[in-house]
């Protein structure tokens, strides 16, 4: 598809964050979400790998280490498609600001590192429009690694990329795996116009940059829940009047019958 939601003329906008585990992107998108909600804007948030429907299959596959690169890729694509078709797309069409913690670029990076052909992966996700704004949280590899390794030293099998047989040591495997993903993210930066945020900065400093960029790039006033300026998806008075008129001109059948009696 390779068009943004704005280029498709949808009234909503989609903002995505990408980055390595431990880059602090989830914290940043959470703070962005809070800020937008506090302004009374229509906001929806969606996380990678969170579709209720697909979850049990994914966790079963991961727990039993049943996944191959191909099935790992496809099960995440299924999860994404479910969220995209049922939530992301309808909400953008209804004029929401949709925030995504990870988007298709996560799959482009991870699946490619796992050995799936890049054009196969991209082809699968080509039903999805591109985000209107993508933040890439770029931290030094060591900083991301330390954040993860300090916090929860028990690394999960797929998270550490153990399925790639990079090393028998989960920590060493994790380092190599994350390093390769970082390379792919960097290679995609220009192609997909990532807004690179220095994730080595403090939380507040990063959030200030994020809010500034969102303000510059998106007309936030038009996403207000109640009132506000020229709303792209607010039901116009003209449209409301049209429906009112139709209701008056063509009363329901039961109403007509009631008049006869």
């Amino acid at each position, binding site marked *: 598809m390779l068009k943004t939601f704005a280029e498709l003329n949808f009234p909503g906008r989609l903002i995505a964050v990408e980055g390595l585990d431990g880059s602090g992107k989830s914290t940043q998108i959470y703070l962005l979400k809070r800020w937008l909600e506090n302004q009374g804007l229509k906001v929806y948030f969606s996380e990678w790998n969170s579709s209720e*429907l697909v979850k049990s299959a994914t966790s079963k596959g991961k727990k039993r280490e049943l996944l191959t690169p191909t099935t790992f890729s*496809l099960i995440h694509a*299924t999860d994404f498609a*479910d969220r995209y078709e049922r939530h992301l797309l309808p909400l953008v069409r209804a004029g929401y600001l949709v925030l995504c913690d990870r988007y298709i670029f996560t799959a482009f990076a991870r699946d490619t590192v796992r050995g*799936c052909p890049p054009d196969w992966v991209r082809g699968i996700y080509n039903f999805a429009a591109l985000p209107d704004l993508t933040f890439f949280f770029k931290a030094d590899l060591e900083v991301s690694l330390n954040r993860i390794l300090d916090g929860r030293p028990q690394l999960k099998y797929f998270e550490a990329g153990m399925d790639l047989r990079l090393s028998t040591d989960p920590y060493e495997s994790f380092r190599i795996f994350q390093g390769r993903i970082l390379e792919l993210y960097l290679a995609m930066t220009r192609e997909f116009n990532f807004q690179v945020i220095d994730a080595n900065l403090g939380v507040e400093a990063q959030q200030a940059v994020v809010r500034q960029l969102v303000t510059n790039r998106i007309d936030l006033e038009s996403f207000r829940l109640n009132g506000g300026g020229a709303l792209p998806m607010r039901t116009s008075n003209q449209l409301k009047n049209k429906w009112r008129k139709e209701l008056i001109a063509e009363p329901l059948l039961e109403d007509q019958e009631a008049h006869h009696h």
Partner: protein
Amino acid sequence: MAKRTHRGTLARRPGSASSLKSRVVLPRITQHRFFGHGVPGVDGAKLRGKLIVVEGADGSGRSTQIARLVDWLEANGHATVQVGLKRSTLVSPELEQAQEGNILSRTTLSLFYATDFADQLENIILPAMKAGFMVLADRYIYTLMARDLVRGMDEPWLKNLYGIAPVPDAVFYLQVAPEELVQRTFSKNAALDYWESGMDLGLSRDMFDSFLEYQSRMAHQFRRLQKIYGFTIVDGHRSVEEISQELTEKVDAVLVGKNSH
């Protein structure tokens, strides 16, 4: 239920009656290729077994014919493995559950089926072929593609998705008129299946009409796919024995290295 043994078929096979006792014909090993990139780390040249696909609607006689092929192959000393749609350990319970609720959008359903297929491909089909087994597939990517095409999915997208699949050694499509399928379904179940009637497409509120229309559309897509992929269309209106005879002869040809396409 399919009868597991039909010695009559075996005896009728030219020149096989005596050779059955001891002589086992070694299958000719042929090169296998994939429709697209295939699966990471799998070399088509190492797939020594054969992949035989039987396609057709419910009630077209697929399982009966597969049971007969299995009997015949095993009687001739070949090891067999059977696969079919929605049989993977990874996602089949979830897929079943999702279908009951009919809550999946089309891309999601398509990817869910692709995940199920890929799981069986990597855990059963490819290892069995590497080990020199005869793999009998009760439906294959053609059914998955035809179903999605009837639902308006993008053909190049599907081709890319199923680029993971190996090209079978033989594909038989049991063609049966929709009107005949109705009769066969009712003689077994007294009810039409929701999905086999394409009720999700909203073709008709009437299940009978919907079934006929949906099955006609499926048959149309199969004829289109046949022109692209060149599989064998088998007249499924004939007797079980006649069809079995035809399939056995064609599989015999495949074993000695004469592919049906």
